[in-house]
């Protein structure tokens, strides 16, 4: 018969409705793919993508009690956390501390997981190229293009994730798109 000694799988199978755990599980399932893709566009190493994705959800789980859906969607909230996680990762890398930090937190991947994440990284190649093309843009514009045009967030969600107003987001997005268009026409 089916065994269930693992609390994780128990929670998955039980599917309690209405509890925060069930709510968080739903958010996890709906967003794990886009959050992984977010990091896959930035990092070419499966282990780093796994670590950053994991870190994002660990922080989200820890802060879920303070998440207020009236202030924004779960996806926007998660992308806000992901952006902080990635910024922290960049800062650590710049300081040369990232190897130590990653080894301390690393969850070892098996070959199947590495393969899955490598496929994800590969699938995000086009997105990564677009981000590289955006490298000349100011940071906020770059982030706006990515969240709206690549990650599929609405401008409202992206504004929340980036901590700016919707008006500012729309202006920056419009400006970034115009610049990219111009640059693209120049290439041709």
């Amino acid at each position, binding site marked *: 018969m089916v*065994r269930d000694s693992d609390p*994780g799988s128990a929670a998955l199978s039980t599917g*309690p409705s*209405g509890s925060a755990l069930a709510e968080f599980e739903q958010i996890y399932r709906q967003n794990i793919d886009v959050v992984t893709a977010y990091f896959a566009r930035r990092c070419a190493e499966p282990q780093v993508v796994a670590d950053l994705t994991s870190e994002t959800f660990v922080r989200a*789980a820890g802060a879920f009690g303070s998440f207020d859906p009236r202030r924004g969607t779960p996806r926007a909230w998660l992308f806000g956390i992901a952006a902080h996680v990635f910024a922290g990762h960049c800062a650590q890398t710049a300081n040369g501390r990232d190897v130590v930090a990653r080894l301390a937190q690393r969850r070892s991947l098996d070959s199947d997981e590495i393969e*899955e994440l490598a496929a994800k990284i590969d699938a995000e190649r086009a997105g990564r190229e677009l981000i590289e093309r955006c490298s000349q843009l100011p940071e906020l514009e770059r982030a706006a293009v990515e969240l709206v045009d690549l990650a599929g967030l609405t401008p409202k969600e992206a504004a929340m994730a980036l901590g700016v107003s919707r008006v500012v987001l729309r202006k920056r997005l419009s400006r970034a798109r115009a610049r990219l268009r111009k640059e693209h026409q120049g290439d041709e």
Partner: protein
Amino acid sequence: MSKFEDRLWRDLVRRHGADLADITKPADKRSRRARPRLLAGTSVALAGVGTAAVLLLSAASSPPAFAVNRNSDGTYTVTLQKFAAIHGANAKLAALGIRARLVEVTQGCQVKALPPAAVHAMALARSMAGKAAPQVATARLDPGKIPPGQFQVIPTYNVAGTVHVDKAHLMQGQAPACFSTVVAPPCEVRPMTVLRNGHLTQLTPAEARKRAEQALATFRAAVGRQHTTSTGSGNSGNSGNSGNSGASTGIQVPAPAATWTVGCYVHGNHPPVTPNSGNSGNSGTSGNS
């Protein structure tokens, strides 16, 4: 989900499941303060209800709630104030890694796994319905006494708006989503006759068990899907109003071919902890849940 995503979710539940189960979202914050408080001395065991027990709570406590508290001897006390809180309590048990679940007893359910004593207790509880409300039910569990591969299940039912829990018993494999109100047969594997190569042939017990387990897995998957879609998002609502009529799930899934191993319970050598009567005094104080 991919393997990476599944593993990551399990890690998250392992690390944060208990914290998440404790969270009350902003919309519910008003009810956060009023978790179930068992007031020693105000509880009255419902004498004569076999192994079932119901504790009266002071009328001051109102919100829908549950509590899973660890006692000093390593056992856990599960407290239910409303029938709807069953999902929250189960989530907490899952997060704590305890292989025990509160299982709704509903008339429409296909899983016939109630011991005869439980059915008798339920009938008695029904006959005594309408005494007082609101009420709280408690059950005591000892995770250390649940053998590997088995689940401790606590039949939970609603009688005239009052939540009742019955004596826990052990079941093989996972806990079902619900129990039928019908008495279960004992858990023994009997030979089953099948048509094989044009002849009626008796399966060996091993073959019979394998077939039954396959049927059970299919059945549970169907129940799980149905349960997920039928319960929706809310966890409150119809808790205290409808007796034991099975309104909470209304599951319409085909019964597995070999219900005799699905609907069975384990007697005997593994004494399930519980009767839940009268020991409520400590649960309001321990509370590390």
